[in-house]
């Protein structure tokens, strides 16, 4: 049994942010996450550090939170944030009234803007639709959600906090009506562990209600599925937004060598509903194409979806539901943090920990905005020159990950999860989506003794199935070619369909 002061459930940006905040305030804690970091909505979003422009007309409070957090994260998370800047582009037919309200509110909230002529905007982003009426620049940035979670967790680990990934909460332990701990299952060994604490923080996002119910209460929330697509190329160096009332498919974000475009917004009941429909892909691609015409002819490498945990509202249109957040003290030893967005994760963590401090009667100031994230100096990024030590030992050709990088990750994490290697090395993130290299990485894993050959093949099967779910809705053009080649390997050469 593990004993600590605070249990955090959820390894997304909020959960990891809370862990860092608690660590800096000297409160012992333990974070549990059923998958890897950024497993839920954190890892399935645009990776956009909002300037607040998107919310400024309909929700100035959220916009104000965004711009102040934007300034903080630029400062404390330099290795996670790419200062791309963003444009809001107005296409023919888009409301001029909305544009006027946008500029006025930005001024009031404090978001720096500049109105650009089409030709100035095209100088900045040559692939923009030349038919735009105008563009307004804002300080949007691209942010790496996975790295952000890792670095927040790094501080927690350094200060002695427990971080248990691949541990699923199977029950909340209650005594006399109070939540006093959790039972977690280690997913790699199926071993059940007990963790006890004075307080449980439910930061499990879309699974919030499931966890709250284990503790004997509930949280009112609306789940909204948002789907995105990834192009094989970086078509813009700036974030591109559509200057109109927030709608489907109106944001494009550059990230490393690719672009992400989205999203959709569809109400769902199941937090595990992660299928993307072909129609959603078409919708997002068609919308993105209006801002960047080449989007329509660029190879898509896959589609993905995340489930946003929104605060419950009467409205049936999930776009109009506030993206603000709320802290609910269930008065039973559990506090839930609900709603919000990646850009304001730090603020959400601060307010949550403030609430915990209140319950504990401790006075300790939040320091997360003042100190840079730990561990950033050790991040080198992935310059090609460093990746390509020897062409012969490259395991993943798309992202240039070599055998040494794979072996180091396997050994340092002691992991048996292929996803852990993918997240940390970018293995399998390129155009073939792990079609070639996952087989190799698993081969290396079983040679390293992390799994038996039979387990390795089973893992490969599961991976191929999951991978296919992501690329199937976006299969045409060159991606379809690639897919047929991948099929010929696994179903043909290796006969993994196991025909008689």
């Amino acid at each position, binding site marked *: 049994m593990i004993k600590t002061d605070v249990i955090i459930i959820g390894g997304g940006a909020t959960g990891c942010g809370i862990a860092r905040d608690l660590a800096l305030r000297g409160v012992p804690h333990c974070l549990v996450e059923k998958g890897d970091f950024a497993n839920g909505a954190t890892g399935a979003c645009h990776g956009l550090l909002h300037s607040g422009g998107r919310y400024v007309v309909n929700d100035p409070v959220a916009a104000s939170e965004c711009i102040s957090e934007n300034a903080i994260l630029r400062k404390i998370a330099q290795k996670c944030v790419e200062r791309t800047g963003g444009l809001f582009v107005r296409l023919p037919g888009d409301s001029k009234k909305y544009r006027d309200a946008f500029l006025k509110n930005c001024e009031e909230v404090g978001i720096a803007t500049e109105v650009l002529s089409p030709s100035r905007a095209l100088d900045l982003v040559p692939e923009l639709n030349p038919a735009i009426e105008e563009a307004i620049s804002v300080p949007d940035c691209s942010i790496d959600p996975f790295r952000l979670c890792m670095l927040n967790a790094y501080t927690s680990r350094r200060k002695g906090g427990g971080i248990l990934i691949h541990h699923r909460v199977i029950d909340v332990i209650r005594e006399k009506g109070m939540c006093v701990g959790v039972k977690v299952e280690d997913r790699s060994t199926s071993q059940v562990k007990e963790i006890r604490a004075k307080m449980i923080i439910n930061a499990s996002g879309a699974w919030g209600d499931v966890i709250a119910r284990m503790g004997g209460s509930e949280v009112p929330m609306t789940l909204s599925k948002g789907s995105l697509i990834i192009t094989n190329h970086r078509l813009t160096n700036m974030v591109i937004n559509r200057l109109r009332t927030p709608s489907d498919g109106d944001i494009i974000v550059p990230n490393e060598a690719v672009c992400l475009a989205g999203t959709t917004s569809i109400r769902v009941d199941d937090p595990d509903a992660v299928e993307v*429909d*072909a*129609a959603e892909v*078409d919708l997002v*691609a068609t919308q993105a194409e209006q801002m960047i015409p080449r989007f329509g002819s660029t190879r898509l490498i896959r589609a993905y979806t995340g489930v946003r945990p929104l605060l419950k509202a009467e409205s049936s249109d999930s776009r109009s539901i506030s993206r603000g957040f709320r802290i609910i003290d269930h008065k039973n030893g559990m506090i839930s943090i609900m709603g919000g967005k990646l850009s304001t994760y730090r603020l959400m963590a601060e307010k949550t920990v403030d609430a915990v401090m209140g319950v504990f009667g401790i006075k300790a100031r939040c320091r997360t905005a003042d100190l840079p994230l730990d561990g950033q100096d050790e991040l080198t990024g992935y310059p090609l020159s460093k990746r390509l030590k020897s062409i*012969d*030992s490259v*395991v993943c050709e798309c992202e240039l990950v070599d*055998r040494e990088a794979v072996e180091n990750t396997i050994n340092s994490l002691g992991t048996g999860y292929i996803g852990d290697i993918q997240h940390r090395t970018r293995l399998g993130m390129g155009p073939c989506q792990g079609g*070639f290299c996952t*087989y*190799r990485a698993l*081969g290396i894993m*079983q*040679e390293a003794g992390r799994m*038996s*050959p*039979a387990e*390795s*093949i089973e893992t490969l*099967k599961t991976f*191929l*199935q999951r*991978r*296919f*779910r992501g690329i*199937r*809705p976006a*299969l*045409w*053009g060159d991606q*379809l*070619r690639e897919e*047929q*080649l991948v*099929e*010929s*390997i*696994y*179903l*043909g*050469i*290796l*006969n*993994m*369909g*196991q*025909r*008689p």
Partner: protein
Amino acid sequence: MSRYEYDAVVVGGGVSGIMAALTLSDKGFKVALVSKGDPVCCLSTGCIDVMTGSGGPLKGIAGLPADHPYRRAGEETIREALGSFLKIMEKGGLPYTGTVEENRRIITPIGTAKHTCLVPMTMAGAHFDEGEYLHVVSFKGIRDFYPSYITSRMRNSSFSVFDAGVSTTMGIAAKFEDEGFLSRFISWLQGIENPYDRLALPAVLGLSNPVRVMKRISEATGRQVLELPTLPPSIPGLRLFRTLKAALQARGGHLYWGKGVSSVESQGGQIEALTLATTARAARVQGRAFILATGSFVSGGLYAGRDSVKETVFGLPVFHPAERRDWFHTDFFTPGHAIEKAGIEVDDCFRPLGADVQNLFVCGSILARSEVMKNQCGHGLAIATGVAAAQACARGLA
């Protein structure tokens, strides 16, 4: 512009196109073969899969729908085509073994069994039998071959690893061309402990004459030596392609390699000439008849847009499942994704339907309803329909 004239012009340099060109060339026609580049058969195992099924390929084919290209070719042509293929390979120094009467199960790199029909002589001993004795030799750092996948599934097996100094299949195969390397490898082999009769290696025994390398090792060690198929790029696939290409060159077929078709001239239901895009001077290749053998999606004969499928050379009408959401099953492993049926529909003479061209014949995996992956019939279908389309073309030319 340079101008050339032929009886028949074949577009596509894969197994089907070369077999069609060879068939026409054998009948005395002047043949040209146009290819954008090296074909996708270099990515294959090099084995000739004819049709999956434990009852043998012919039984499997008999069970196919009547509009499947195999049924259109007919059993007699299939037998004749495969027979002719075996002769070509024998003569080309890359002998194959097997018969169309039955399938064999060979060992895959993950220790599963895969059905195939004709195999290169070096894979003759690669039959799958969980009880039989097998020693696997792998190479240090090789990316796509992990011998424990095989040995963990076979009761009486073991493996050793040789350091060839390189780790790609291509690099290792090139080393086996070198006599000194081969001798070093053999003396290493003689030093390892191997209680088993069969000695299996990934398919890297040289680029040009694997049978010679296999025999050398076999004689020196007193063991039966065999190659196992590997993932792409595959050396047996490359050898297959090179041998077929050399056979065509030996028969005087003209090759236009590395050149795509940039425009097509036709008049009154007849295709007259193709213009080939080159970096320097465009070439106009004129023919009395044409054969389309550009393959399916992977090789670029077909190209899928968001909601439609195009044939990339002649713009022929393409049969395909209408809605993109129906192209693939939701399950990766369910055989027979609907998109596999996409392709060119033809008449009994392998001429495209709905296109109003009399002198164009279509063969290989670009044919509609061939379902190559589901039926595991890639090279077999290429060979059979390549010969069948060439025969129909020859009748038209006569």
